Structures are given as structure tokens and as C-alpha cells.
């Protein structure tokens, strides 16, 4: 198990967040092709994530679906007044997903999902204009979710999953807007926590009220990653301050918010299906990213005060012989309130355009491709809650984001 985790961590390294906050909606190629809908779609083991109740509606006895969705996202910042400008150089993100569902009998199916629903990797140039807020951040999470579903009758089923969550976070920022060592290199701190574990759950219900209409409801609980006594490394501290800022440990909590999904799928005929999903992510749980250092740095107060946010998704799939063509669109509203915009998750409202293609090689094997393009507007934003020496120092300017993902996966079913 340990070894598996290591390998998975390697693969899921550096996933750029591209949804609001650090939610990373790339949990399946088939779903992504249809605008990342799936709460009421039951054509692959991806249901383990989207709605475990759907497991009993799968046609096959065994369905194993998995893939990887490389994503490249970047952000740019500039301030017209000061001519300050910076761009991120984010690593390619490689979020993975793996799902398996096995039918026990007509009523009961069980399954396993391994996926990375939260992640973030943002690398600004060291010492850029906002370096007192962030130089680099890397967040990785892996959810391992065994699940079971029970079908009451032809119409209704419920499903439940329990998630074991493991996360890594690394965060570097400058200690202030000016402190530097004797060589003029800005003083900075890196905090790093790995293998922070927590538990979560999800529960879903699926209702096939007619041969053409399916409804789904899914709720995913919030997960709190609590880093305790993890290393904090203070670098480039001037010598007369080194006694005050020795390397130390820190405590911090990071919340992975809960999410509620309401979904509907409508089958026009045997070949064409339209899906509509509504997600509400309970970002209001993300109040701050306070870090308690066990040295004279004390507590770094970083209010976030996100608000709950909605995503509206629409997807369509049309099947022609062994090909399935998919297209989708979604509107992702940012959870960040005005004045709370930080460069660690510099995303604003976006529109996602998706497409997908599957090819059934045989009765058992299907190849899946997906493509996502996110449209962002340029926007003005500020973070007005940075405190230094008793005064508040706002950080404002224009941001522009881009993100493109290209995923591929395989489905095996019998």
C-alpha cells in the first residue's frame, strides 16, 4: 500500500488548480468530455466519484476505468501603475483517476476509486511583486474511496463511499515586502507537510424515473487536513535576526470543502444523451490559511473567507457505432470575494469548453480522450488583508489565467 501511494503521489504531482479555489475537476475522461457532468450518467466506473449510487446501474459485471489528465495552467499579473508584471511558470499537472466497480448481485455493487480532486501548483518568479503573499505553492491530495451501492428497485438506488485522504503541501513566500539578507536576497520561509491524512465520505442517490430520464444527487463531505509540527524552513535571514527566526515547525489546517451535486440526464434515444449537473461547493468553510510557527514569527494570519460557489454544467454524448462523441460546457463561479484575491489560487470566473471521444476497440476495451479549454477574462483584483508592522498593505493589479487539459484513459468491462 505504501509503495502504491508513493507511485500515485509521483503521478499526481503538481496539478494546477483551474476551478475556483484549488478544486481540480478532472475526475474522468468520459465525464470531462461532457463538461464534467456525471451525477446522473451511468456508463462507466467513473460513477464511483460522481455518484456511487450509479454503480448498480452499470451494465457490466466488472468495470475498470482509469486515466490521466495532464493540464497546463498559467497566470499572469500586472499593475499598470507601477509597471510590475509577472507570470507563473507552473509545472504540468498530471491528475489521475482510477475506478473499479464489481456487481455482486442485482441489488449490490461495490467499487473503489482513487483520484485527486484537490490540487494546486503555482510558481511565481521568486521575489516578484507579490512575493510577500506567495512565491510557490504545491498542493497534492489523493482520495482512496471504497464504496458500496444498493438498489431498492428498478428506479432507485443509493451509494456510499468512505475516503481515505492523504495530502502534501509545500508553500514558500517572502517574510515581508522588504526584509532581505546581507546580499539583498529576500528572506523567505518554506513550509512543507507531507503525508497529512484525513477521512471523508460521500453519499449519493440515483433515480431512473423513466427509461429516458435519470436524476442524481450526490454529497461529498469536507475534509480537513491538519498539519502538525511539520518543518518550517527560514531562509536568507540576516544574521542578527537568525536567533529570532530559527528553522522551526508549524501547525496549519487546510480545508477541502464539501460539494453537493444535483444532476439530470435525458436520453433522447439509444445513441444520444444530454446531461445537466449543478455543483455547489461549500467554500465558506475555507476561512483562513493561518500558520502557527513555533518561533518568533508567531502566527501568520491569512484570512481567505471564501464564499460558497456554484458550477453549472451541460454535456452531450452521441454514439455512432464504436465511437462516442462528446461535448460540454460549464460555467465555474469563483469562490473568492472581492478584496480576498490571493496569487496562490488566482482564478476568476471561467467558462470551460470540453470535448471528448471514445473508441471501443472491442467489446471489453474502450479508449477515451478528453480535451478541456478554459476561457478566462482579464480582471482586476486585490488582496487587502496582508498585515506588516501593524499596517495593512493591499496588493492589487490585473490577472489573466489560462488552462488547457488533454486527458486519455482506458475502460475495461466484462
Amino acid at each position, binding site marked *: 500500500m505504501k509503495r502504491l501511494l508513493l507511485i500515485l503521489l509521483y503521478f499526481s504531482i503538481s496539478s494546477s488548480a483551474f476551478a475556483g479555489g484549488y478544486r481540480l475537476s478532472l475526475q474522468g475522461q468520459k465525464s470531462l468530455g461532457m463538461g464534467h457532468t456525471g451525477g446522473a450518467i451511468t456508463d462507466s466506473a467513473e460513477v464511483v466519484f460522481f455518484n456511487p449510487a450509479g454503480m448498480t446501474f452499470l451494465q457490466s459485471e466488472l468495470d475498470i476505468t482509469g486515466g490521466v489528465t495532464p493540464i497546463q495552467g498559467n497566470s499572469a499579473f500586472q499593475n499598470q501603475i507601477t509597471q510590475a508584471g509577472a507570470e507563473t511558470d507552473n509545472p504540468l499537472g498530471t491528475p489521475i483517476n482510477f475506478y473499479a466497480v464489481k456487481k455482486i448481485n442485482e441489488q449490490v455493487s461495490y467499487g473503489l476509486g482513487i483520484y485527486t480532486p484537490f490540487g494546486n501548483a503555482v510558481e511565481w518568479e521568486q521575489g516578484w511583486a507579490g512575493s510577500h503573499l506567495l512565491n510557490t505553492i504545491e498542493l497534492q491530495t489523493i482520495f482512496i474511496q471504497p464504496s458500496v451501492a444498493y438498489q431498492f428497485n428498478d428506479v432507485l438506488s443509493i451509494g456510499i463511499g468512505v475516503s481515505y485522504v492523504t495530502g502534501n503541501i509545500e508553500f514558500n513566500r517572502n517574510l515581508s515586502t522588504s*526584509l532581505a539578507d546581507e546580499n539583498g536576497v529576500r528572506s523567505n520561509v518554506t513550509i512543507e507537510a507531507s503525508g497529512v491524512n484525513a477521512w471523508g465520505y460521500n453519499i449519493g442517490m440515483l433515480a431512473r424515473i423513466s427509461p429516458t430520464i435519470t436524476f442524481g444527487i450526490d454529497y461529498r463531505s469536507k475534509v480537513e487536513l491538519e498539519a502538525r509540527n511539520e518543518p518550517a524552513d527560514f531562509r536568507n535571514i*540576516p544574521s542578527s535576526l537568525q536567533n529570532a527566526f530559527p528553522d522551526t515547525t508549524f501547525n496549519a489546517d487546510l480545508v477541502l470543502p464539501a460539494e453537493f451535486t444535483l444532476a439530470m440526464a435525458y436520453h433522447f434515444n439509444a445513441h444520444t444523451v444530454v446531461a445537466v449537473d449543478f455543483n455547489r461547493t461549500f467554500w465558506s468553510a475555507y476561512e483562513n490559511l493561518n500558520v502557527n510557527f513555533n518561533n518568533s514569527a508567531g502566527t501568520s494570519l491569512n484570512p481567505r473567507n471564501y464564499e460558497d460557489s456554484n458550477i453549472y454544467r451541460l454535456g452531450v454524448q452521441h454514439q455512432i457505432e464504436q465511437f462516442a462523441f462528446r461535448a460540454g460546457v460549464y460555467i465555474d463561479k469563483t469562490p473568492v470575494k472581492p478584496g480576498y484575491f490571493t496569487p496562490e489560487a488566482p482564478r476568476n470566473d471561467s467558462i470551460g469548453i470540453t470535448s471528448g471521444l471514445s473508441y471501443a476497440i472491442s467489446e471489453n476495451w474502450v479508449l477515451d480522450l478528453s480535451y478541456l479549454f478554459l476561457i478566462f477574462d482579464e480582471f482586476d483584483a486585490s488582496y487587502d488583508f496582508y498585515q506588516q508592522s501593524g499596517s495593512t498593505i493591499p496588493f*492589487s493589479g490585473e490577472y*489573466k489565467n*489560462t488552462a*488547457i487539459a488533454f486527458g486519455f484513459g482506458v475502460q475495461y468491462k466484462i
Partner: protein
Amino acid sequence: MNTKIIRRSFGLTLLLTTLLACNAEFDNPVGDETHFNSGSADLSHFVSLGDSLTAGYADAALYLHGQENSYPAILATQFAKVGGGDFNQPLVSDNLGGLLFGGNANPAFPNRLILNAETESPEPIAGISTTEVFSPLTGAFNNMGVPGAKSYHLITPGYGDPAGVSASPATANPYFARFASEANTTMLSDAVSQQPSFFVLWVGNNDVLSYASSGGTGTNQLGNLHPSTYGSDDLTDPNLFASIYSQVVTALSAAGGKGVLINIPDISAIPFFTTVPFNALPLDQETVDLLTSGYAEYNAGLQAAFQGSLITSDEQQERSITFSVGQNAVVIEDESLTDLTGLTLPSIRQATANDLILLTTASKIGEPVSEGSTSLWGVNTPLADEDVLTPMEIDLITTARLAFNASIKGIADSNDNILFVDVAELLNEVQQGFSYGTGSINATYATGDAFSLDGVHLTARGYSVVSNEIIDTINTGFQANIPKVDPGAYSSISFK
């Protein structure tokens, strides 16, 4: 793993990188030089003339990093994007600051200050300066900023004469001696001979500051139009200032260039004068009792003087010395008080919020006047005239400064080719906290990022804010579009 697999996985990576290539680009990216222009200004020959603030002096020294980030150097870098030419500065030899005189260090010109976080005090950086006063530089220098220069020094022949540096008393300035074109030249002449197409003049600071930073020990030279009779800490006569200033501007404009004039900031916006509180003295009950009985005789003497009609009741009130547990006002000497030495009563009182206690006094308050002595500065021994600016002295400074600034503005307003930059107003804003969008600075000593550790001169960041103000003025006044700089990219104070 064979080479085929390696090549394939490399190919896959390449494909992915191409497929996912996306850069975040703005519609109007900063740094897009196509929009930049100098308007009606010709920035090809830019000359700056002034004092330490123009030279890039900071942390009580002139050092390389400070010079490289002087406001004229910052301006020149921006000007270069819109037709500006080379910009030569009389660079010192190192980042220590400090000067050598014929190989000898001089305690009057120490190394730059750095902040020792353990003692919470500034101290000179260790090292031996390598900047030799008597190895003059050659060539013309665009930055004609000379630390210590007052208005009348600009037109004083021999102000850069090495012989005058060694004379006693010195008649020349060692900083100018390093790069004066010849012994008998003037700063103005060396500036004018470069035929500036554009100039910035910021002079007059020392005409008030040297009086202010010496605690008002100099003389107010109001009415005296003969600078050769002035002492170094005197307050310059405003009429003398006005006539010299006008002469300097006329000479700088002679080549047909345009220019910018900068006014003189208020001392109440400068941390050197505002950092040490008047009630800097924490006392416990025991000390309060001791001091109260110690001053009982003085207070009784004041009562007698009042009854003898030698002083008013207001003055008696003002001079009475009282202490209580907690923060207490320091005791200071005030020469403006009625002379009661005939009654063996010294001219002392406790400071009020209207007095400005100099930054250099901070380390003195409550300390023994000499080792082992029980006489403590500001407690049972008054702080001296040189430690404090009293309201009367502050009034003199303000009156002179406002007169200087009126002259500067008047000259700028009467000439279409000359713009006026109100740095006094800018530094007043800085004192309240000045936000530049991606950060902010304020005038708090050591932590505000605007002022260097000498408390008078700016940090590189502070100078960059001044540069932006000048650029704004030029952009508006000469219909130019010169890009500003990001103050956050400039350094603040240095720690040990």
C-alpha cells in the same frame, strides 16, 4: 528501457507540451514600449543637480547601491526607454560608504548604517572603505548631486577644491572634490557645461535641514545676504535662496532644455524628527518620588519667580516639572524661557508634543552623562539645545521652508518649460502611509520602508516613489508617456 521507449516517451512529452502550450497574456501588457514616448521633452542629455537626496545618499553614507538607486539614476533608466542617453554618476568604490582622506578613514564619514536586530539599533557596517577623496574622477557627470550642498554652494567656486577639503575649517566638500572638473569650478558650472536638454533640480533641503538636525543650534540668517559669513548649521535667508535659485534655473535652462524643480519637505514628515516621543521616559514610583523631591527646589523657585512677577503664571506652569508612574516627558533645556539664572534657576522645562526630539537623542535619554555618573540625560540633567527642536525653532524652520518653496513654485509657474514637483506633499502622504498598488510605504523609522536608517534620507524604495512622482509630473506636463517603476522591486533598509 530501450532507446525506442525513451524516444517515444520524449515524443509524448513534446506532444503534450505542444498541445497544452498556453501563456497568459494581457491585452495591454506592461512594458509594451510602443506606447512610450517623451512627449515634448528631450531627454537625451539629462542632468540632475542637488544635494545628498539627489546623490542617492542613504543610511548616513554614500554607497554604491544607493547611488545606483538614486532617483536620478532610476529616472535615467526609465528615460532610456524614450530617447534618454547615457547617465554617468560619480560612483564611489564600494558598498560600505565612508570616505578615505589620503588613505585615512575619518570618523565624520563613517560606513553606512545597518540595523542590528539583536540590539534593535543601527550600527555602521564593518569594513574599511575604499573610496578615496583625493583620487578624483574625470569626465562629466550627469548626476551632480553632492551630499551636504546648500543652495549657495551650487555657485561657490572652490567647493570641490581638494585643497579646501583639508583646510581648517574646511572650505570644500569632499564628495564634490572627488569629481569636480577643476579646483575652482562650481557645481552649477559643471552641470551647465553639459548643456542639459533636461534637468532636475532639488536643492535647498540642507538650507533648512542642517539647522534642524543640529537641534537649532545655528543662527537664523534672516536678512544676511552674504553666505560666506554663514556657519554650517545656519538657516539660509529666503531672499538669498530665491535669488540663487533663480540664477541656477536660468543657467540650467540656458541651453534651451526643459526641467523639473522639486521643493523642500517638512521636517514633521521626516522620522529623524518624529521617531522619539516627547514622553520617552518610563518611570516607577520609587524614581518618581526621588525625582519629585529632586525638582522640589526648582519648582519652588518658579513659584517665587512668579510671585516676584519675573515670569507669568503660564510660564510657571510650563516650566514646573512633575513626574508620575508610567511614561513621562523628558526634561529639556529651552533658551527661549525667561532667564532666571539670577535665581539659580536653569532654563529648563519638560518636553511637550510640540517639541521634536532628534533621532540621535534616542540612545541618550535616561543614560548617564558620563560613565558611572548619577546624572541621567533628560531625567535629572536636561537634554541640551542640540538634542531637541523647540516650537520656536520649528517655527523658524517652517517659515524659511515655506518661503523657499514659494520661490521654487513661483519660478516653475512662470516658465512653461519648467514643471514643479511637490515632494513636500508626497512625503506628507508617505507619513500617513502611501500605497502604490502592489505595496505601501510609510515614514515609520526602520519598518516603514520609505526612510533609510539615518532617518532623513530615503531608501531605494523611497527614492523610487519620488521617481514615480517626477515621472507622473513629466507625463502630465510634457504630454509624455514614460513608464513608472515598481517600488516593491527596490530595496529598503539592510539588517546586520
